[in-house]
């Protein structure tokens, strides 16, 4: 099989990898041990494979690894520093925003990109940022709370708009 070299930065570390020209970024990242990048639908629907490229969230299942040449990739592994978690990760823990955890890296990375761009987003903006990540445990409310709390760290507890009664029942 034909191979080529790709040079990129992952979580601040310079990397040079030998890849096949048709390799997808998702496959290469997992092959290199970044298992926080999840393999979900592999068709750009579920968002579980989200990584940040130059601070922008993308679906790594839809990007060829060769396209990442020269770029800065951030995966969930690169967010904390040793034992010190990112405030968003802390907020997800504090709010019980993690159920099975499969979508959590993508939720947090999408939220990270939003907060970098907009430190104090509205609830609507948070929902929009998380809309491309499917949680099949269907726990959407607590991630929204967690992101708002991380944005308002030290401030008052965020108040969410009331959920419709039926939905509130379903998320219990």
């Amino acid at each position, binding site marked *: 099989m034909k191979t080529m070299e790709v040079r990129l930065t992952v979580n601040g570390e310079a990397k040079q990898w030998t890849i096949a020209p048709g390799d997808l970024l998702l496959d290469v990242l997992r092959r290199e041990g970044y298992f926080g990048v999840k393999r979900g639908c592999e068709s750009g629907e579920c968002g579980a494979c989200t990584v940040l490229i130059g601070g922008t*969230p993308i*679906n790594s299942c*839809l*990007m060829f690894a060769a396209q990442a040449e020269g770029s800065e990739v951030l995966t969930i592994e690169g967010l904390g520093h040793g034992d010190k978690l990112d405030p968003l990760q802390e907020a997800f823990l504090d709010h019980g925003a993690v159920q099975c955890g499969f979508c959590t890296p993508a939720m947090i990375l999408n939220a990270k990109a939003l907060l970098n761009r907009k430190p104090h987003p509205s609830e609507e903006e948070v929902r929009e940022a998380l809309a491309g990540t499917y949680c099949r445990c269907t726990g959407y409310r607590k991630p929204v709370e967690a992101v708002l709390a991380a944005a308002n760290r030290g401030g008052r507890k965020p108040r969410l708009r009331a959920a419709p009664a039926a939905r509130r029942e379903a998320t219990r």
Partner: protein
Amino acid sequence: MFDTVEAFYRPGTVGEALRLLQNGKNRARFVAGGTDLVVEADQSIRCLIDITHAGLSYIRRRGKAWVIGATTSMAAMENSPAIRALAGGILARAAATCGSVQIRNMATLGGNLANGSPAADTATPLLALDAEVVLADARGRRKIPLTEFYSGRRKTKALIVEVAIPAMPRGGRWSFQKLGRTESDISLVNAAAGLQLDSQGRAKWVRIALGAVAPTPIRAVNAEKLLTGRKVDESALAVVCDEAARETRPITDVRASAEYRRETCRVLVRRALEECAGGTGCSL
């Protein structure tokens, strides 16, 4: 998934991209955002040509027209002050519905058109805006109306370089309407409209474009003619919306039946024209 791919190129110019395409015979494909190409997973591809470094990501004023480079992302269009201000922001609004945040960061305008889906969200506003497409191939560049691009798409092996939007009539009023399962899902039906009224409130200039109701996005030209010269009142709307629905050739698929699409089209054209006539136009 793409085990058959033998080479990946990242040309820095359109000329180089075209040479690579020619060298690749029929086994080479252009790629930009990848959001359609990767899902399609065509096993005959031997060579991929990434055009995102060929200098085609821009939104510029050229004379009285606006030109948008082919690899401009949906996110770039929805966030561009110029595109948000252009024609009531219908193109920015369509781009903002084109999938999730991640998809909109990747998907490009050129790809949305080249993929040729009748549900392409940007195509409908672009048809209402009389957009033209600049194509490049080994023989050179040519500019064709978007309508012509759709009628001849399967025959061409050219690269979309940019989309040009000419100056629109003064005082134009605009609307973009979309029905999908969710805000960012593919359109079941979409519609765009543009209106210019004379001093008596009669329609002087009309554009009605429809998506996902025919093999390609279409202009409802008969409906446009019916409304031209008339006041946009209840009786005109009834006739015009019926005519627009008659101009469709929808299919039944997993998302909706042909009957549902035709009826929805009638509703969306009405909403679009009412929004235009209401004077506010759509805004982001």
